């Protein structure tokens, strides 16, 4: 209750003239670290007496209870914080790498429609993520001493054996329950919905069958709305925009032991921060950098979070083009590409897991320059244009010119990827995508295959083939493309073109596949693409 009132007060006081903040921040940056640290302390104290919105504090709602903490290291993950600082061990660690889902939690954000939740992997998400948001954990989702329907159904259907994965499954199911609106009306879930919700949860004991049954059965149990849990001690609609200046760099959200984290809300702020900290770690979804902390035990001194900059998280449908902000998450894109690029949306459905897709971004997937990222080949095939901004001003780069070598791009320190633009497909054009991996869901590609074709009057007018997993960077297959262009759209053309794959690509063998398989399957995928494009005409599609 106290927190709630304080926050009300704070929000009133947030309308302090912007300049005051700037001075504060100038001060912060001008003084040596130790004193600066005190400066931030001072800000916090000011805040406590209601003079100014301090920023060096994480404030969040945990299962209905408001919590503030100003001593959280910027590198601290949600899971670590809950299990060690809060001594609340209901979320488990199975891998600390986003792969197993034992740590799955629900994170809620206030919107016009009320609190909206999504799942995430608490093991690789930073505490900054929960700032001014609503976190739900397995022990907190039941109401009035009752189990949540997801929990009750899991008990009824014998969905747990060793129980270690169970809290994570419960959260994925509870999120599915809430997202599909089962708390307001009964409906029937499909197996597809259930598998998608569970794609990031591994269970070694049950073989999943009873868990899927529980997912079906939870719909029939007495309804439960978890947002009532979150709202137990009052709802808050944050207006973070007013917390920080619109231009100039904002103060650190976290500043502990000389390590700091910034959470800019606008690109102006981001640019100001990049001027001061050109070598800062840019943190988008964290599904890649997060592993630096949890697997390699690295600690970043300066982290700049990109995921609250609203302009980066937008998609815009233009006349001829689609504009995708670099901060658009996979989940968002999966949804928003469904109409214009259905094959792309299907691919997105196979990237990581539901949790990973809720966090990871298109920009991160392109900027990390991994040779096995899934979207770069698709963007290469679509000949995407990348918008770059930062210390050297705004520029545009064709994605084909973006990658310089293994994990190297044209991005300079102090620059960021702003957006990706792709042309809409014309009626004669198509995009065929194939992801080859050992496991269907939540696996990294052995080969990612993307083929753009323009076929007019039975002749291939244009073709762009790009693959991942076959070279040091995602790469176009130029010789193969040449063998396609200008040729009749026929099986023979594709079979002939496939002979050039070996000239375009020299893959390596690794844990995911041998080089021989990578080449063979890429050749075969060319034929398979043809068969799919002609499915219905040729009878037996691949």
């Amino acid at each position: 209750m106290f927190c709630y009132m304080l926050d009300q007060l704070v929000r009133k006081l947030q309308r302090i003239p912007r300049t005051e903040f700037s001075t504060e921040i100038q001060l912060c940056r001008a003084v040596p670290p130790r004193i600066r640290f005190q400066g931030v302390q001072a800000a916090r104290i000011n805040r406590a007496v209601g003079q100014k919105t301090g920023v060096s504090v994480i404030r969040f709602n945990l299962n209905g209870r408001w919590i503030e903490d100003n001593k959280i290291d910027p590198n601290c993950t949600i899971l670590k914080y809950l299990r060690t600082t809060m001594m609340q061990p209901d979320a488990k660690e199975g891998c600390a790498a986003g792969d197993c889902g034992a740590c799955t939690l629900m994170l809620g954000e206030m919107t016009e429609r009320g609190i909206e939740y999504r799942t995430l992997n608490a093991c690789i998400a930073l505490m900054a993520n929960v700032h001014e948001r609503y976190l739900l954990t397995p022990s907190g989702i039941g109401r009035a001493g009752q189990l949540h329907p997801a929990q009750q159904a899991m008990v009824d259907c014998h969905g747990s054996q060793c129980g270690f994965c169970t809290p994570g499954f419960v959260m994925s199911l509870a999120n599915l329950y809430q997202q599909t609106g089962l708390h307001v009306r009964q409906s029937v879930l499909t197996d597809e919905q259930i598998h998608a919700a569970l794609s990031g949860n591994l269970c070694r004991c049950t073989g999943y069958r009873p868990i899927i049954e529980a997912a079906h059965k939870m719909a029939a149990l007495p309804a439960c709305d978890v947002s009532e849990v979150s709202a137990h001690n009052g709802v808050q609609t944050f207006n973070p925009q007013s917390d920080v200046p619109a231009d100039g760099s904002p103060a650190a959200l976290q500043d502990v032991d000389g390590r700091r984290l910034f959470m800019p809300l606008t690109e102006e702020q981001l640019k100001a921060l990049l001027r001061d900290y050109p070598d800062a770690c840019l943190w988008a979804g964290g599904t890649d950098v997060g592993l630096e902390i949890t697997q390699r035990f690295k600690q970043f001194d300066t982290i700049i979070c990109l995921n609250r900059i609203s302009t980066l998280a937008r998609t815009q449908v233009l006349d001829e083009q689609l504009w995708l902000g670099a901060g658009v998450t996979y989940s968002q894109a999966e949804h928003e590409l469904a109409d214009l690029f259905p094959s792309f949306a299907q691919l997105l459905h196979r990237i990581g897991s539901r949790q990973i897709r809720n966090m990871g971004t298109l920009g991160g997937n392109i900027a990390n320059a991994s040779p096995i990222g899934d979207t770069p080949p698709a963007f290469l095939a679509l000949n995407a244009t990348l918008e770059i901004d930062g210390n050297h001003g705004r520029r545009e780069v064709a994605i084909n010119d973006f990658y310089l070598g293994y994990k190297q791009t044209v991005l300079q320190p102090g620059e960021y990827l702003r957006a990706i633009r792709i042309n809409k497909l014309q009626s004669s054009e198509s995009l065929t995508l194939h992801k080859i991996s050992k496991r269907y869901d939540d696996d990294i590609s052995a080969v990612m295959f993307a083929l753009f074709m323009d076929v007019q009057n039975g002749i291939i007018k244009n073709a762009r083939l790009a693959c991942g997993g076959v070279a040091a960077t995602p790469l176009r297959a130029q010789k193969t493309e040449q063998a396609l262009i200008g040729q009749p759209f026929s099986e023979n053309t594709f079979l002939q073109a496939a002979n050039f794959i070996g000239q375009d690509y020299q893959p390596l063998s690794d844990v995911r596949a041998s080089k021989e398989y990578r080449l063979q399957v890429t050749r075969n995928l060319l034929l398979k693409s043809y068969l799919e494009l002609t499915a219905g005409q040729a009878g037996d599609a691949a």
Partner: protein
Amino acid sequence: MSHVSSKVTPWEARRQRPAKGKSGSKLAHESAEKHVLGTATYIDDMPELAGTLFAAVGKSTIAHGKILSLDLTAVRNAPGVVDVITLEDIPGEKDIGPVFKGDPIFADGVVEFHGQALFAVLAESFEQAKRAVLLAQVSYEEQPALLTIQNALQQNAFVRPAHSMQKGDAASAIAAAPIQMSGELYVKGQEHFYLEGQISYALPAEDGGIKLYCSSQHPTEVQKLVSEVLDLPINHVQVEVRRMGGGFGGKETQAAQWGCIASVFARRQNRPVKMRLDRQDDMVLTGKRHDFYNRYQLGIDENGKILGADIELAGFCGYSPDLSDAIVDRAMFHVDNAYDLNNARVIGHRCKTNTVSNTAYRGFGGPQGMIFAEAMLDDIARKVGKDPLDVRKANFYRDGGSTHYGQPVEDFFLPELVEQLEQDCDYRARRAAITEFNRTNRWKKRGLALTPVRFGISFTIQFLNQAGALVHIYTDGSIHLNHGGTEMGQGLFTKVAQVVAHEFDLDIDMIQASATATDKVPNTSPTAASSGSDLNGKAAQNACQILKSRLVQFAQQHYQVNAGDVRFINNHVVIGADENSAQWISFADFVTLAYQNRVSLSTTGYYATPKIHYNRDTASGRPFFYFAFGACCVEVEIDTLTGEYKVLRADILHDVGRSLNPAIDIGQIEGGFIQGMGWLTTEELLWDDKGRLQSNSAATYKIPTSVDIPAHFNVQLFDRANAEDTIYNSKAVGEPPFMHGIAVWCALRDAVASVADYTISPPLDTPATPERVLNAVMFCQQESKA
């Protein structure tokens, strides 16, 4: 004594109905509600005592070689570091080999595998310990490393001598047979991937002793090893485990090392010490299921009947024996699966390699033997051009026969079970439909397989087949139950509690199962070999029977009735022969009365499995008390352009005798099948040419997810009482269903074989990843062109 807990249903109400949750009912797992809330406490969830420190190990960066120098100065000086230990700092025994020596707690001058522990660090936080271990300066004199079974065989490198079994004269039978054939199969191992990694929490205890919480399937062994390592009498060490987040064999021997290291630190610092392996350390530092390289020579007749078989199995043991002797034995015991080899010679090699020491994993070598039997049967079917199911049936054992290790074949009702599944799942009609599908589809092909499982139950080391239990009855009628078995998700605590409830005809909520603890029930066997409920259920029953006979004796004297007139019914004790005049006394009142009359309400129970024996010198005997049966039919579809596939349907009929808890048993069957499927499909262990484990994380080692399970997945119990006197005539269920996964592999191979019109048996080593399936398809394409 007047207190009655509000959690207890009034006795009057209980009298009106049968007791709830007794053996045979579909009771939920005892911790189900705690599981879903996240409040079931695993060791890492226990509130840490003030002053707790965290340990991590430093690992070798070569696979084989001498350690020339180990400079740990930077490690000691790293932030937060409190203590560092190497082998020299171990006060007592330095080798923690469980059966045979050979597992030094830290590398003893020589590194034997990449990632072997060299030293350990203790720090104020887990992260500090993890960062510190990376600062060690180590120099080595590298030596050539043995990294494959083939290498080890060539160089005669073995961790234990080979063993062989035989029946009749295989060589002559093969030579005389109308058809001779040979083949081989490389079967890869498997990472356990229990969701909870290895963990131990050691607290300094009285008189220099240790109280250790350890996620272990074998607390007694951990206790013994900790006492040896600290040079203490065993009674100074207590090991406790309430539950594990999965074990699957991976915490049978391989939990001890971390418990020992934590204990050594706890003693040195006199502070609580937690040692938890993160996922990558867990995957690199602990052993896995063994790879096997198997070869056969067969003599068969024109109908595909096996006349003679010469089989050579070679297990990938890693650098030390661990349990490999018994594991390779079990592979040998199961290489016949359900088939009469008539004349057989089976040899099993225990290959030594410079890799982590492989260990127990659900099935304990059995699956690697059994899949080879099924591979042979498929090869035979292609050779003689028959449906594989018919060839299987033609080769089934019959009662009265005997195995290649001399165990008589009895109660062999597997043919009947297979017949029933064949009908239930419509095998013949689906076979015809699939043949048609494959004829009309150019790129997609379907496959079908129906394979049996016959799995021997008992530890093949005779002395392990014993168990103890401890039962206390309190004066409110509630019962405290303890036994030597550990709970790892398999539902053992639930089942044994149900046994106790059944014996006293009490509601299950009167029975409180408690953490396995070496100071409650001593000298226990590992919870392994599917034996948990067989052994501990019987031991608990024995304890209940002892208590019941005391209570009956007391009632006889007290009420002056015959023993037969004292009955335990509906949570009550009924005294008197005549239904109408009989006196109903609530269980609580009755035991209070007994207590007041000075009857002991606590006892231990004990059980030792009868009938079993095996003579290793003659390679014959009856190693198994009985066999569990089952069969599984799987349909798959493959894409011949990419090798990708989908398991479309699985039907399983499985024999658990008279089920102790059908819900739990079905859970074991479903989970076992999917784990077996994972082993043979997406889960691929890979070491590079330097001996580094490449599949060392959840990102590179892929266990099945929910979409991988067949959309049609039917599991039925074959309800028939075990002819042997097991607990309520049930059968063990932990391991046998794992091997139903073999049907997936056979079905994939069937689909591939369709490419060459079933004329050849394509090579398909495991796991059958899309890559291997595509290679097999291409093999068939080339062969049928040729």
